[in-house]
């Protein structure tokens, strides 16, 4: 019997297809480019990201479900796609000089970043358990390789192995959870699962609980929530700094984009009773992340723990499970992405031929030799703590707003106490930059692309704090699909 082709609308995967074409072309071109001119591939991939970005913007407002319900194209997906494209563009801008200094100037680096982006871009579109899992794997696979990219550096290899093992293990847990979910409901399509649960009202059957536990554990690993965070500091410290930035911003945002779809549809988050578990995890994550960050001396580890804490804040939106909560996650993620990428750009600046540049003591007196850098870091620090006027403040405002409106007062109080604690370690770095004597012989490896990246992140962090309206509207628009 002849198979019937389902209705496939290729427009839904148009941005990713463009990026895939660019990525494959990049790999083909790579052998023909001279060893010291690989940055051309960097610019080539930037071009690909731009073309893909333009196509994403043109698609805004569409609502398509295709590939037999595996992929959906709606504002929610487009919001995240645009965000991921911007993240990748900034990462490539940051990497061009860095990978030359670290002698990992390979074309495959850019190709892998593009593949990771493709994986990330498919994730918020995924409306089926299989499609999200495979996109997650695509992104993770590329990131495993990127984390271990500095093959000669034992820390990088260690980071890569740790990331690979915990990543694969957590993917296995997610898959096991998916299997339980499929077993309980008989379908892998998220929409059908939601409908099934509503019909049969089985929000607490045992296999569903097992599925929830396994999924929250697996995703917990991905977003480095406590107690699944152990891999994060070592991986962040070991990986090449742009890859760390990519992990911290991109993979976290991607994981959250999937979590929203999966948990809302498959577990009826808004009406269910799942919040106690999430509450405990969120509180532990926020608190441990902030407390351990207090004692760090390595800047990358400090940012790793701070990003663990931010995952905790983001979970507040999951717990409150309301329109405001979901929109808050999206708004906070936008701010978070820019402030984190900006902070990492500063670390990259310090990396030069004779200095790794990731210790806090390397920042000594930086604001006195280079006042612009000091100012820029203050903007990022204020945003990370949540002090206005910054994008981080708007995000936190929304998150705490959602917590109060949902009646989770203690959660809000714990959130603000953690913000106060985080002030201390961020301003310790500010203090080192402003009030200590500068290190002799600190060479800043400025490159034009790095300056552009720094400028964009700093500007957006400040601008979105003063004029967040477009992001807020886009976010609220995007989460309409969950209501």
């Amino acid at each position, binding site marked *: 019997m002849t198979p019937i082709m389902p209705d496939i609308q290729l427009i839904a995967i148009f941005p990713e297809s463009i990026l895939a074409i660019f990525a494959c072309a990049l790999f083909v071109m790579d052998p023909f480019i001279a060893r010291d001119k690989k940055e051309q591939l960097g610019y080539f991939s930037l071009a690909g990201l731009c073309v893909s970005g333009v196509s994403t913007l043109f698609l805004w407002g569409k609502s398509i479900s295709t590939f037999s319900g595996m992929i959906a194209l709606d504002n929610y997906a487009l919001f995240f796609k645009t965000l991921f494209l911007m993240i990748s563009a900034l990462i490539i801008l940051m990497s061009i000089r860095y990978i030359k200094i670290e002698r990992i100037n390979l074309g495959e680096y850019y190709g892998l970043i593009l593949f990771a982006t493709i994986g990330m871009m498919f994730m918020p579109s995924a409306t089926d358990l299989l499609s999200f899992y495979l996109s997650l794997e695509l992104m993770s696979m590329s990131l495993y390789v990127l984390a271990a990219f500095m093959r000669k550096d034992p820390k990088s290899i260690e980071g890569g192995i740790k990331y690979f093992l915990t990543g694969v293990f957590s993917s296995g847990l997610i898959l096991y959870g998916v299997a339980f979910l499929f077993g309980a409901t008989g379908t892998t399509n998220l929409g059908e699962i939601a409908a099934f649960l509503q019909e049969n009202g089985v929000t607490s059957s045992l296999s569903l609980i097992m599925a929830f536990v396994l999924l929250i554990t697996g995703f917990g690993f991905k977003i480095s929530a406590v107690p699944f965070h152990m891999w994060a500091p070592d991986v962040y410290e070991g990986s090449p700094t742009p890859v760390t930035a990519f992990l911290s911003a991109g993979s976290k945002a991607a994981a959250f984009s999937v979590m929203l779809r999966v948990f809302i549809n498959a577990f009826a988050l808004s009406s269910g009773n799942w919040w106690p578990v999430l509450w405990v995890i969120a509180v532990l994550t926020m608190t441990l992340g902030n407390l351990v960050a207090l004692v760090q001396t390595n800047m990358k580890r400090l940012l790793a723990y701070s990003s663990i804490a931010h995952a905790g804040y983001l979970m507040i939106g999951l717990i409150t499970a309301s329109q405001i909560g979901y929109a808050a996650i999206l708004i906070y993620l936008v701010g978070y992405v820019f402030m984190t990428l900006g902070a990492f750009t500063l670390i990259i600046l310090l990396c030069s031929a004779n200095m790794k540049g990731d210790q806090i003591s390397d920042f000594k007196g930086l604001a006195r030799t280079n006042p612009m850098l000091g100012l820029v870091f203050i903007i990022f620090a204020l945003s990370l703590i949540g002090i*206005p006027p910054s994008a981080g403040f708007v995000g936190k*405002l929304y998150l705490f707003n959602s917590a109060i409106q949902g009646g989770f*007062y203690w959660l809000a109080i714990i959130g603000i106490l953690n913000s*106060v604690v985080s002030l201390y370690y961020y*301003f310790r770095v500010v203090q080192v930059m*402003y*009030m200590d004597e500068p290190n002799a012989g600190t060479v800043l490896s400025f490159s034009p692309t790095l300056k552009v990246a720094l400028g964009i992140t700093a500007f957006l962090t400040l601008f979105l704090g003063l004029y967040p309206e477009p992001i807020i509207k886009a976010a609220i628009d995007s989460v309409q699909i969950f209501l």
Partner: protein
Amino acid sequence: MGTNVYGFPLLSLIAYLPLIGAIILLFMKKEEEKKIMQTAFAVSIVTLAVSLLLIPGFDSTTSEMQFTEQHTWIPSLGVSYAFGIDGISLLLIVMTTIISSIAIVSSYTAINMRIKEYYVSILFLETGMLGVFMSMDFFLFYIFWEVMLVPMYFMIGIWGGGRRLYSAIKFFLYTLFGSLFMLLGILAVYFLNADPQYGSGQYTFSVLELQKMNLPLHPLQFWLFLAFFLGFAIKVPMFPFHTWLPDAHTDAPTAGSVLLAGVLLKMGTYGFVRFCLPMFPEASVYFMPYMAGLSLVGIVYGALVALAQKDIKRLVAYSSVSHLGFVMLGIFALNTHGITGGILQMVNHGVSTGALFLIVGMIYERRHTRLIADFGGLSSKMPIYSAVFAVTMFSSMGLPGLNGFVGEFLILVGAFEANKIYAGIAVIGIILGAAYMLWLFQRMMFGPLDKPENQKILDMNRREIAYMAPLIVFMFWIGLFPRPFIRVMEPAVEKIVQRLKGAGAMAKQESEEKSVEVISKNDKTVIAARIDPEKGMID
């Protein structure tokens, strides 16, 4: 919503002029030190001049917000860019511009490293302070409130002395802690306003809208008041949240202390007057005994500890705690005299304690020590300085004829109307205040000139006389002719008192109804006892 006489965004201009000045300074080379200092001073004088334009255009007969500016900013959140002033803010704004200019001038010789960054910080700080007093939208208010913390942190941390890094971060952490709790309060109020039962049914951050809310005392007003209380009480600072103050004041550079004491502390008290009393009148009435109690503790404790200090600056810092205890007592007497006295005393404290810190700064620049024991008999070598010091000291003590007396007198009248015991305890504070100030003056100025280093000490030069003069003038002006200042704030204060009177009756009713059921609860039996004194207040 309000009137704007000039049809011109005057308030925004006043608020952003220092910021523009700071940006201009950023572009100047850091070696051109004289130019930087002069530009900074010029900017602050221009701001001062523009702020004086507010006075003729101000209508003292209405309690409406004036010079209002309103633009929608973030419609999804209900945030608008709203500036506006009434009598209370007008006084504080003009005081801020004057004190900022004086602070800038006083730093000419005190600061000799990283000059450009210093003046940029001061101007940034000025914008933040002005913005707080003008904001009519909570989001905007919060931005300015927090923005102030960063330049102050830098001023203490870079140009301060002693344990400056510790004091700076302690200041920042402590204040941020309080502000974040206030943020939760703001969000709660924002959320409750959208409930038609309590408010206008819309999501908005506008202060005027939110002041019209109708919240029950328990549990809403109770917790909301406490949330805002935490934020403001740390700023004031009220006992027991005052521990950041001595360190921050002592270790800050002179201009930093002047601005900290002169303006930043007022923001806490301003917050109580502008937000807590109008938005939570029933809670204010309910908490009045506790607030008065804490204020009295602050008055007496601050004075006693000041008496024991060996460092002049620390002594003045603790005297601030004591004086602001007076202000809080006045405000929470919840009557016209008390609140008027409290607000007037805010201005007075800015003037006199600002002057005190400047005086300390002058002596520190000469001798690089602040220990009282290192001085003695200075009046023979520095007659002008002694005179200025004496006037300032008397002003701070509350001698009739000078500004401190008017404020303290009004506060005492208000406190007496509320509860005679409060006034009695407060008087002890005045006596102690006289004690430590006179003793300080005597130890420093009179007595034998036995330290050899003091032999060659120079008297005040022309610049110093120039910047102390305006403060001295104000001390006499407010002391002898306080009418213009009081007239300006009358309508606004009346409006608040009316709201409180209405609330007082309601709160009395509620607590009477509750007194039967709460007698059994330990911590609320005090309410039953308090009903009698509250009768004295509602008349």
